[in-house]
């Protein structure tokens, strides 16, 4: 058994043995679990894909004269101003002012919060338009200026929900095309979409949250950040396989990091026709190999991870809970699967190639001694389910 302190000491002396969650599979097979657990210090996991529940706090500093911002738009995308005089929160899925949305279905959603966040990280110059009602101490009532991330005091990404442990596979059993956050689903089950890095994905390598918890260091788009809380909709009570790996969404993580340290390659605005805008992020999470049991978890393969196929024409919108079938990521990655006796073309919203890149980048940073692990100070809730929103007819 190793401790966090011992692993960090090895990282600092640049002697840590670090493998990606893909490399560790063959490594353990060759060396045997016990021997490998003595050698390997860290396994890096990663994912890259749309992470809707994301956004950032920005502090603009104070203008002369001062303004107490009540409403603000960055490149015509509204940032929430009900935080403080010069602080706003910009959400990834916020549409641009006057976007016709789905008025002309399917809406194109060419620009929005996720794109503004991408431009900020890329160092581009953006327009700020802010209004206020004016007070004695903050007399200015309107301003328009241009800024880059360098002009801001702080740009802190604070994401309520990232890194879904596993995710639905969306299919369309109806006779009309659907436009969803999992892409365009053609009628009659012509195609389906999954969204997970599978064997590389952080929480699939730590299915019962034995190392990833509140306070864990993460690599968020190139910046060193951490898990600030359980992610929203966190539901550790989920249907799980014999390896404890969930077959539905299950766990999520709330992540934060300094946007000024992020790399634009891993922060990308996305447009989903007929649905809206969002943000795709690259996240890497190191798993300390405290013992053979933790190592065993990281050797999970795509063939041992199953996702639930859900009909997005009726079962998903109406929350019926019906699952058409379950498919492993190994099957999904073949590009064609059979669902209810029909051949279906497979698409993905999550990028395995980028996840691999992130896992490798994090591995190299740890090997160089540039990224230390941190022991979580609180575990994620072990038995929690997701509550539905009840539509009540009366207050009492």
């Amino acid at each position, binding site marked *: 058994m190793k401790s966090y302190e011992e692993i960090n000491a090895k990282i600092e002396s640049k002697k840590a043995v670090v493998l990606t969650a893909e490399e560790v599979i063959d490594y353990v097979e060759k060396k045997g679990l016990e021997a490998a657990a003595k050698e390997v210090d860290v396994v890096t996991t990663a994912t890259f894909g749309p992470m809707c529940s994301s956004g950032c706090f920005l502090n603009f500093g104070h203008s002369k004269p001062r303004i107490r911002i009540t409403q603000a738009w960055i490149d015509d995308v509204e940032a929430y101003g009900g935080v403080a005089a010069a602080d706003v929160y910009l959400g990834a899925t916020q549409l641009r002012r006057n976007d016709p949305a789905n008025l002309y279905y399917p809406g194109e959603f060419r620009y929005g919060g996720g794109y503004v966040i991408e431009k900020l990280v890329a160092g581009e110059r953006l327009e700020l338009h802010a209004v206020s009602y004016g007070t004695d101490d903050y007399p200015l009532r309107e301003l328009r200026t241009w800024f880059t991330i360098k002009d801001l005091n702080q740009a802190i990404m604070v994401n309520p929900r990232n890194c879904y442990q596993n995710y639905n596979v969306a299919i369309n059993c109806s006779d009309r095309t659907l436009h969803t956050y999992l*892409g*365009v689903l053609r009628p009659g089950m012509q195609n389906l979409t999954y969204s997970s890095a599978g064997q590389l994905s952080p929480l699939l390598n730590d299915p019962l949250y034995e190392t990833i918890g509140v306070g864990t260091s993460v690599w968020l788009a190139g910046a060193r950040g951490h898990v600030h809380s359980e992610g929203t909709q966190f539901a550790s009570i989920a249907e799980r396989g014999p390896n404890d790996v969930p077959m539905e969404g299950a766990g999520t993580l709330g992540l934060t990091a300094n946007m000024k340290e992020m790399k634009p390659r891993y922060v*990308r605005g996305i447009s989903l026709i007929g649905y809206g805008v969002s943000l795709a992020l690259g996240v890497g999470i190191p798993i300390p190999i405290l013992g053979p049991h933790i190592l065993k978890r990281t050797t999970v393969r795509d063939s041992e991870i199953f996702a639930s196929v859900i009909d997005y024409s009726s079962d998903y919108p109406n929350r019926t809970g019906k699952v058409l079938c379950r498919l492993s990521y190994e099957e999904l990655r073949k590009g064609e699967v059979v669902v209810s006796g029909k051949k279906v073309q*497979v*698409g*993905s919203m999550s990028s395995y*190639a980028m996840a691999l890149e992130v896992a490798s980048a994090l591995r190299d940073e740890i090997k160089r001694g540039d990224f230390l692990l941190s022991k979580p100070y609180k575990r994620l809730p072990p038995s929690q389910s997701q509550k539905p929103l009840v539509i009540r007819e009366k207050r009492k």
Partner: protein
Amino acid sequence: MSTKRMMLSFPKSETEKPIVYHLVKDYDLVINIFRAKVTPEEYGYLVLDVSGSDDNIKRGMDFVRTFNVEVDEAGVGVAWDAQRCTHCGSCLPHCPTKALRIVDPKTRVVGFFPSDCVECLACITYCPFGACSSLF
């Protein structure tokens, strides 16, 4: 017999002549048009595969050029931006000819093969990252 992908750009005035007819009839070429916009008094384009003997293709294109039509022999009307592509694979089920496909099954990197593209433009509509675009 060979097949070449061509992109013909028409100037504003040269749209009344039955150029494709002559390519078939006089130069014995098989024409497969993927995309075309040829409107009188407007700049137009034609993206097509031309099949025939190398000599006939060359003579055919020389004939086309006499109408002031620009011939781009590496012409593809769809551009794929390798920097914007994140290799997520959401395009894969929508590309009918697999011009967009996984290059390496291990790393799952996606590549674009212009010679297989029939310019249906589905990728432009469906790519969340805006990696694909049309030249016109």
